[in-house]
Structure formats: structure tokens, C-alpha cells
């Protein structure tokens, strides 16, 4: 398979979903079964993705395939010469792996939805929306430049908006959609500013060109500080999209959307786009930027985990765990564990999608009951769902033999190594803490849902195992959550092809002195540039490799114990009822409330930002109506007042003496009119008088 063919294939994968979207949307009303077309499309896309993945990784493992066209031609710009704005696609290992994940999960979700969404009024439109989402996500994955990244970034936002608010009759749903879009926009502002900085400096959007120019020592505003700032600004986009602290508030609300959507967009793919962005721009991140990223990641891993401990809505718990896991990835990138972070992105995509679809099937069975306190004992009723859900829970808790164990342990290991190298142990510490919490709340969820006695018998009676089209995706994802696909040795991911050959840490292009020591490369810059362009394996330095080696065993043991501990606690609390949970909650009431109320983020934001903006806008509108207009307009009140002392005035005002001088000129007019008494002698007096004045002026 030649490179042009691969390009075409990639383009096909990109545009097929768009076609699906258009067709499904336009004919949705007339042809009832048009959704099948969309599904066929997505299956095609998936097949294409598999082919692409296979070819790329087996034949072009070390060469990136790029193809670009000029989108806009600015002509002969003064001082710059001929300028064009290019768009294009980049096929490298990262993108093909990502595209595989995206299309796979998208396909599974399509299939899952066939039954799940049955009988919905806008059945076809739902699939259309899925189509446009897949299109935009694919765009993000394939882009080779920042502009296209931003474009599809926004489009993803749109599709997310549409899908969250899919049941727009529900106010909560449309609210959630709006919230998601706007909160994302906040992040995008940062990203936009970053892009502006990049373009004004390098006059190109293409990653590779930007990198090579940076490597050549050309920085935004000619200072490394601004390079750091650029990195952070771009990362802001990721904060929004990947629901990182402090912009994480939209994701839980996004659960208003149909559950399969949550699985696809708000767990597996879209929210991962943020991480993907950081992966893409990784080379230009200075130590400062990386530190910032790591901190944000750490907070986003920790805070939601604490919240997830006490939530009762099955989807909410999963949502917070998603944020927390994304936090892991971001932190991983921050501490330089590039490979593990991306690896975790993939594995997490599978098992988190699985969890959501599982919860979907539960909710479906329970007739849209989402409160786990009303569930229980479902494992007899729905064995498949239970089994798969269990696997996923193990994976996310990082129990050996699962994919989750491999990737998550890698990140922990990375942060451990980071700590040992730089002395910032906090990341490692929080990482392990969160690992334990994760284990706890996942099993709390599992137990409350599937174990024990049913709490709501009525609903329980009607519960039933889901049909094949819903069970099959669960099965597939469950299988993908086993270690074997990634590495032969369940305790060392490094031995698997995916980490050893496919995912490679790119060479940094940042100047040596603005890197962490362990990232300083022994290679001269120009070679570095070479290597960036062909994405060849780079390890930062000997010290780092050793540190990583050293970190392997301790972190492994630590994480295992903590995870086990978490599970144990969960069981003792909810399965064997060793401890009275409520009493415990009471004993630490403030903490409990804090966690239960999600740290009051929504309340605070609602009051400060939303309220503030609305208040400001009201104030300004008032200002506009009464002050600005008033100044120009002769304040209404004044004119009223005047209108009393002169009957005509109001009339005249209404008649349109509206300009600013209305009042004044009217008044002047009044004065002049006073002279016109109709008595001829008055006139004479005035004439003589003014004559005298004139004479005095000119004498």
C-alpha cells in the first residue's frame, strides 16, 4: 500500500462520517431507516482505520506520511512575500492508534445505540449527530497543523453540544449543553491566544515547521518565557476539552446526554482530545509549562476522585472517575511519562467506554433509574453486564492482568521517577492516593449496583439482560481490557510492541536550559530537528532511564497494595457492612458534605462568573439605555419635567427632537420665542437696545 493510497484512505475515513451526517440529517424525516446508512458508514470507516493501522505500523513504522494543500492564499503580503495558509493531514503512529480507538468505540456505540435509543422521536437525527462527531474527532486526530486542530476542536464542541442537549425538551439537558459549550470556549480562548502567539511568531500553523523554527532558536516575542506561556495557553484548550480542574464542571452535567453518547464522547474519545493535543505539542513544552501541566493534572486527578467517593448517581460517579483518570494522563505528560500517558489514554478509552455502556445497559434495564442506592443484586439478572463491568472495574483500579494496570502503573512509575529526579514527590504521592480512592469508589459502585439485595423490588422485577446488540459491544470492550493485547508480560508493558516500537517519546525542541535536567539531550540541536521530523525513538537521558528502572518495582508494589486496600475497604463498607457508612459520614460531616456537594464548584462559578457577567451586562444595558442614550438623547426625565412648564414641549419632543441638543436647543428656542411677544413696541425697544449694544461692540 503506497503512501498516496494511505492518504486517500485517511481522507476517506475523515469524510465518510461527514457524508453519513449530511445524508442522515437531510433524509432523516422522510426515510425512517436511514440510520442504517450511518452505521454502514461508520463500519466502513472502522475497517479503513484497521487497514491504516496495520499498514502504518507494519510497513511505515518509522516514517510519517504528510500531505498538505494551501487553503487560503494571501497573495504577495508586504514584508512576508507570498503567504499561504495550509491545511493537511499527518499519519504517524500516534494518529493511527488514536483513529483506531476512535472509530472502534464510535462503531460500538453506534451498534449499542440501535436498541438503546429505540423509539426516540429524533432517532435518525441522533445517528446524524454521532456522524458529525466522528467526523470532527477524526479531524482532530489527523490534523498536522494548529489551525485545523482548532477548527475541529470547535466542531467537536458543537457535536458535543448537540448530543448533550439531544433531549432538548428537558431544561437540564439544554442547560448542560450550553454549559459544556461555553466552559469549553473559556479554555479555547486560551488556546486561541496561544495559536495567535504561534502564528504571529512563525507565520505558519504547521507543527513540524513550528518545531523546527523553535529548535532553530526562534521564540515568541524572542523570549523563552513567552515560549512557556505559549505552551500553557495551548494547554488551556486541553483544560477545557479534557475537563481538567478548574474547568471540569461541565463534564458531570454532560451526563444529561444519552448514555452511549457519554460513553463515546465524554469518556473515551472527545475528552481525550485534550490529552491528544498535549501529546501533539509536547516537543515545545518547556519545564515551566510541563510543571504547570503536571500540577493541573494532579489536582484534576485528586479533586474529582474525592467527589466520586460519595456520589450516588451511577453516571456521575463514572464522570468524576473519568476526570480523575484524565488527570492521571495529563499529570503523566507533565512529569514526562509521555508514552505511558498516551498508553493510558488508549486503555482508558476502552475500559471507560465499557463502564459507561455497562451503566447504560443497567439504566436501560432499570427503566432510566440512575440512582445506585435504588439498585442492587443485579448480577443475577444481568450476568454479562456484571462480568464485563467487573473487568472494567478491575482495569480502572489497576489490578494486574488488566490493561489498566499496565498503563496506570506506568504513569505512577513515571511520577515516582520524576520525584526521585527532581524532588517533587507530591505527584507520586497524590497519584498513589488517587489509585486507592479509585479502587474504593469503583467497587462501591459495583457492589451497590450488582451485589447485595435489590432495594427497589418493583424495578428489579422488570430488569433483564440486554439484547445482543448491546451485549456485544460490552464483550468486545471487555476483551480489549485484558493485558494480552498490549504486552506478553502482564507486569511489564515495556515488552509490548505498543510501547517499545509504536509510541515514541518525541525529541524536545525547547532550548536546553529551559528543560528539566533529565530531559536534556546529548544530541546537538540540528540532529534533534531531524529526529523530530521523523519521530524516531528518543529517551531523555541515562539518568531518567535508570530512575524509571528503579521506580518500577516500588511503584508496582505500592500501587497494588493501595488498590487492594481500596477494594477491601469498599467490600467491608458495602458488602459485609463491617462499618456503618452513615455514622462514618456523620463523624466527618464537613468533609463528607464537601465531597458530596462537589466542592461547591458549580455554586461558586454560578455566583461569581455567570452571575457576575449577567449583572455586568444588565448594568451596561441600563447604562446604555439611560446614560449613553441619555447623554445623546436629552434624558427622558428632564424633557418630561420641561414638558410641564411648556405644553408644546412634550409634543415637540415626541415629534422627534430626539437628538442630544433636544433639550438645550428646545430651551434656546424658548428663549428666542419669549421676544416674539406680538407687541410692536417691545420689538422697537429690543431693536434700539441691540443697536446700542452693537455700537458698543464696534466703537
Amino acid at each position, binding site marked *: 500500500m503506497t503512501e498516496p493510497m494511505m492518504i486517500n484512505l485517511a481522507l476517506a475515513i475523515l469524510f465518510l462520517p461527514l457524508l453519513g451526517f449530511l445524508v442522515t440529517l437531510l433524509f432523516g424525516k422522510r426515510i425512517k431507516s436511514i440510520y442504517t446508512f450511518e452505521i454502514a458508514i461508520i463500519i466502513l470507516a472502522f475497517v479503513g482505520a484497521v487497514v491504516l493501522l496495520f499498514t502504518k505500523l507494519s510497513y511505515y513504522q518509522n516514517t510519517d506520511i504528510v500531505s498538505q494543500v494551501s487553503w487560503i492564499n494571501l497573495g504577495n503580503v508586504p514584508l512576508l512575500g507570498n503567504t499561504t495558509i495550509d491545511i493537511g493531514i499527518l499519519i504517524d503512529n500516534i494518529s493511527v492508534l488514536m483513529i483506531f480507538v476512535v472509530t472502534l468505540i464510535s462503531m460500538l456505540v453506534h451498534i449499542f445505540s440501535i436498541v438503546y435509543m429505540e423509539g426516540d422521536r429524533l432517532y435518525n437525527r441522533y445517528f446524524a449527530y454521532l456522524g458529525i462527531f466522528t467526523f470532527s474527532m477524526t479531524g482532530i486526530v489527523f490534523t498536522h497543523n494548529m489551525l485545523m486542530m482548532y477548527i475541529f476542536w470547535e466542531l467537536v464542541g458543537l457535536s458535543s453540544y448537540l448530543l448533550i442537549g439531544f433531549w432538548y425538551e428537558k431544561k437540564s439537558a439544554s442547560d448542560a449543553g450550553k454549559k459544556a459549550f461555553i466552559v469549553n470556549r473559556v479554555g479555547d480562548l486560551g488556546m486561541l491566544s496561544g495559536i495567535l502567539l504561534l502564528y504571529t511568531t512563525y507565520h505558519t500553523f504547521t507543527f513540524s515547521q513550528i518545531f523546527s523554527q523553535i529548535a532553530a532558536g526562534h521564540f515568541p516575542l524572542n523570549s523563552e518565557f513567552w515560549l512557556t506561556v505559549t505552551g500553557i495557553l495551548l494547554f488551556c484548550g486541553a483544560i477545557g476539552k479534557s475537563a481538567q480542574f478548574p474547568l471540569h464542571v461541565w463534564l458531570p452535567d454532560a451526563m444529561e446526554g444519552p448514555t452511549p453518547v457519554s460513553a463515546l464522547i465524554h469518556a473515551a474519545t472527545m475528552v481525550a482530545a485534550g490529552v491528544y493535543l498535549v501529546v501533539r505539542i509536547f516537543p515545545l513544552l518547556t519545564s515551566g509549562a510541563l510543571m504547570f501541566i503536571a500540577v493541573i493534572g494532579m489536582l484534576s486527578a485528586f479533586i474529582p476522585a474525592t467527589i466520586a467517593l460519595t456520589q450516588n448517581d451511577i453516571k456521575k460517579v463514572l464522570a468524576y472517575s473519568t476526570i480523575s483518570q484524565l488527570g492521571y494522563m495529563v499529570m503523566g505528560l507533565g512529569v514526562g511519562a509521555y508514552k505511558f500517558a498516551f498508553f493510558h489514554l488508549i486503555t482508558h478509552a476502552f475500559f471507560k467506554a465499557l463502564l459507561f455502556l455497562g451503566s447504560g445497559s443497567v439504566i436501560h434495564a432499570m427503566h432510566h433509574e440512575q440512582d445506585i442506592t435504588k439498585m442492587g443484586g443485579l448480577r443475577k439478572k444481568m450476568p454479562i453486564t456484571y462480568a464485563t463491568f467487573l473487568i472494567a472495574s478491575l482495569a480502572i483500579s489497576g489490578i494486574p492482568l488488566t490493561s489498566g494496570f499496565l498503563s496506570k502503573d506506568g504513569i505512577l512509575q513515571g511520577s515516582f521517577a520524576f520525584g526521585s529526579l527532581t524532588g517533587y514527590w507530591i505527584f507520586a504521592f497524590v497519584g498513589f492516593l488517587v489509585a486507592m480512592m479509585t479502587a474504593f469508589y469503583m467497587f462501591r459502585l459495583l457492589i451497590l449496583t450488582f451485589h447485595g439485595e435489590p432495594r427497589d423490588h418493583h424495578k428489579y422485577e422488570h430488569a433483564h439482560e440486554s439484547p445482543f446488540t448491546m451485549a456485544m459491544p460490552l464483550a468486545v470492550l471487555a476483551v480489549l481490557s485484558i493485558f494480552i493485547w498490549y504486552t506478553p508480560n502482564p507486569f511489564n508493558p515495556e515488552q509490548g510492541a505498543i510501547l517499545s516500537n509504536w509510541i515514541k517519546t518525541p525529541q524536545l525542541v525547547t532550548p536546553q536550559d529551559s528543560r528539566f535536567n533529565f530531559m536534556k539531550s546529548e544530541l546537538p540541536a540540528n540532529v534533534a530537528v531531524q529526529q523530530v521530523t521523523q519521530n524516531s525513538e528518543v529517551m531523555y537521558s541515562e539518568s531518567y532511564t535508570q530512575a524509571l528502572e528503579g521506580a518500577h518495582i516500588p511503584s508496582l508494589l505500592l500501587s497494588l497494595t493501595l488498590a487492594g486496600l481500596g477494594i477491601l475497604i469498599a467490600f467491608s463498607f458495602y458488602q459485609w457492612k463491617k462499618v456503618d457508612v452513615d455514622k462514618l459520614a456523620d463523624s466527618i460531616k464537613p468533609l463528607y458534605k464537601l465531597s458530596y456537594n462537589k466542592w461547591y464548584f458549580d455554586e461558586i462559578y454560578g455566583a461569581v462568573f455567570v452571575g457576575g457577567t449577567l449583572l455586568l451586562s444588565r448594568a451596561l444595558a441600563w447604562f446604555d439605555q439611560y446614560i449613553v442614550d441619555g447623554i445623546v438623547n436629552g434624558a427622558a426625565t428632564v424633557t418630561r419635567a420641561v414638558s410641564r412648564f411648556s405644553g*408644546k414641549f412634550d409634543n*415637540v419632543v415626541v*415629534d*422627534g*427632537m430626539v*437628538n442630544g*441638543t433636544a433639550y438645550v*436647543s*428646545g430651551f*434656546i*428656542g*424658548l428663549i*428666542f*420665542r419669549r*421676544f*416674539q411677544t*406680538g407687541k*410692536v413696541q417691545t*420689538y*422697537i425697544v*429690543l*431693536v434700539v437696545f*441691540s*443697536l446700542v449694544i*452693537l*455700537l458698543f*461692540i*464696534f*466703537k
Partner: protein
Amino acid sequence: MNTISLNYLVDSLKLIKPEIALSITLVLIVLVDLIMNKDKKFLPYVFVAGLLVTVYLLIEQFSTSAFAFTTAPNLGMVIIDPFGNFFKLLIAFATIIVIMFSVLSNEIKEGLDRQGEYYALMSGMILGMFLMASSADLILIYVSLELVSLSSYVLAGFNKNHVRNSEASLKYVIYGGISSGIMLFGISILYGLTGSTNLYEINSLIQASQVHGLTFIVASVLIFVGMGFKISAAPFHFWTPDVYEGSPIPITAYLSIASKAAGFALLIRFIKITFIQSVDPNGFWHLLNVIDWKTFFIIISILTMTLGNFAALWQNNMKRLLAYSSIAHAGYLLLGLTVLSNEGIMAIIIYFVVYGIMNLGAFLVVMLIANKLGSEEIDDYDGLGSKAPFLSVSLAIFLVSLTGLPPTAGFIGKLYIFMALVDAKMIAVAVIALLNTVVSLYYYIRVLKHIFLNDPQKETQVLSTSVASVVFLVVLITPVLLFGIYFTPLVDLAKSSISLMGF
């Protein structure tokens, strides 16, 4: 000696053919009036015929410039020059149109039996104006001014039994009498200072020996009172609103155009001939620095236009509103004089043509509407747009032109005034004038609002307009629109008629 004097008398008479023709017309009118006691329908046509002859004679001698009735070599009482001739033409045409007005007007029809005196007086008035436009001697100035005034006093109160008319005439006569009296006093002082009544002589005398400042200023300001009264410049304008509102519409129109034109002709001539020292190649006048006329006129003109515009904001009677607007326009016209340059004079002339046409048009429409509605109150105009579309649209055109928006002739008039100002670097004045224009929009547009935007309160019967008036309106509208787009002839005319005798 005797023959010589005879020849030169004949020569002089040759030069004043138009005036002679007018006098003959006057006599004719009186005679016809006497002869046919019953039906005097074609009295006006006699008058028009006479005027046409006059116009012909004027055009014939348009570009000649000479003295008539010379007292000493090239010092005459009467000057014949393009400048004067232009104003005479303007006045003559205005008169013709006003006669047509009168034919259509109901108010005049009332006093059908007294048409004879009406037209006789009018012809007397126009004769006076002609003399005003060409007099170079203080005596003649006073006499002609009085001639105009006396006839207009009577005409203002033509309908004896109308309260408004008689009141208007009384105010007019008292006010006019006093202003001419004051002027006369000024003249007497000037005579005392210089010992001559001939403007050229006075000029040369001033140039020769520096006359005493204060008394001279007193004299000239006092003289200005008379002219200010005629052109209704503030602060000598007080008669204008009352008289305009009071008198019959044709007369109002006549006063607002013809006598104003005559007044301006007189004023310009007086200022230029009496106080000129030299004219520089760029056409700017250098006046003798006995009195700072520039500042004087700036003050007067700004005062006039501001006062006119702002007072007009309040009017509910259409005639009164137009009265104030004509005061405001007097202000704009005076701006042309403030520049003290030929360019300014040219601007004034252009503006006058335009102003004449559009103002006559406005008054005509008002009169036609008054004939139908029997009211000049703006509130009664509500919904006229649907009742009498043609009248309304034409009024709209005239008012827009008076506001000075393109593509109407009014814009061209204003444009040239402002160009003159900017060329003379009098930016501040220009800004004030422009802001005045904005203000003026209020009241003009307010009339249109009543006509088009308001729904009629009373019953809506469609008002018919006679063919004659339609034709007549079209005649007036055409130039308003035409000159707005193609004004070369206008400017050429102005250029050919700015040359005053002697300069």
C-alpha cells in the same frame, strides 16, 4: 451745454429702459383698471406682459455696466451693471410667479374688485426694488426703499376685513417707519461727515481723509438698520414672523423673496462701494479699516440663522415656520457676505436663485393646501400624504431642498456658501452654520412627519389639484432637482453677474 445735458439725459434714459417699461406697465394697469370696471380677469396678464418686456430689456442690457444720471464724470445716481441686473431679473421672475400665485389664491380672489390696486401697488413695489438694486446715491436709496415699503405696507393688509391682515400691516408700517427713520438719521450723519450722498464720492473721501471713527460707525450702523429690516436680519427681524403670518400668502412669498433680494442687492452694493479699498487677485476685498464689517456680519449672520432655526422648532403655523426659516436663510446668505470676497458674492447669488425657487415652491404648496383645507396649522396636515400625494411629495422636495440635502438645489447653494467659508479659512463659522443645518432638519422633517407618518384625524377625502397648479409646481420642482444634479448653468450665471460697477 444744453444739448449736451439733453444728450446725456437721453443716454441715461436709454440705460433705464427696464424701469421705464415698468412705469409704463404701472400706468397701464391703472388705466385698464379704470376702463373695465366689471371683469378684470386679465389684469394680471397685462402685468405679466409688461414684466416680460422688462425681462427682455434686462437680458438685452445684462452685461452693460454704466452710470445713469451722472452728477459728475462717472459718478451717477443709478448704476447699471450685471450685479444689479441679476437681482432685477430675479425680482422680475419672482414677481411673475407671485402674480400666478395671486391668480390661484383664494385670499386675493376675495377682494376681486380691488385687484386693480393690488397689481398697481405690486408694480410700484417692483419699481422700487429695481431702483434699490441699482442705486448708488443715498437719496435714491432712501426713496426707493420707501417706495417699496409703502406699497408693501398696503399689500400686507390687503384684505382689510381680515383681522390678521390689518394687524400685520399696522405692525409692518410702524416697524418699517421707524427703521427707515433710523436709517435716514444715519444717512443724514453720513452726509454731514462727507458732504456727499454719492457712495463713490463718499468712498473716495474716506480713502483720502480719515473720517472720524465713532460718528462714522454710528452712521453706518444706523444705515444698516434700514437694510437689516428689509432682509430681516436679527436683531431687526422681529416684524418678520408676525407680518408673514398675517399677510396673504402671495404677499408673504413676495416679501420673503423679492424684497429680501432687493435688500441684499442694496446691502452688498452699499458695503462694497462705500468701504472698498482694493480687491486682491484671489477675489478677497480689502475694506477700509473704519469699521470691522467682517466681525459685524459674522455676529449678525450667526445670530440670525441660529435665532431663525431655533425659534422655528416651536412653530405650529406653516407660514410662521417658513417665516422663521426665511430668517435662518437670511443668515446663511449673510455668511456669503462675511467672507468679503467675490466668491462669497457668487455664493450669495447662487444661493439666492435656489432659495427663490424653493421658497416660492414651498409657499405655493402651502397656499394650495390652505385653499383646500382652509388652514395653515401643521397639525391639520396629518395624513395629507394619502389625501393629496402630489402636493405632499412636492412640498417634501421643497422642504428637503430648504434643508439642503442632496440631490436638490438647496444642497448646491449651501455647498457654495460653505466652500466660500472654508476657502476663507473661517472653519469655526462653517461648523456653526452646519450644526444649524442639522437643527433646521428638525422642523422641516417635522412637517413631513405630519404629512406622511401621522394618520389623518379627520375624514379623508382626496384633495384634487387643478391642472394649472400642477403645471406650475412642476415648473418649480424641475429646477430644484435639475440644479441639484447639474448646476453648471447656475454657477456660470452667478459668475457673469458678480461684477459690480467700478470693481
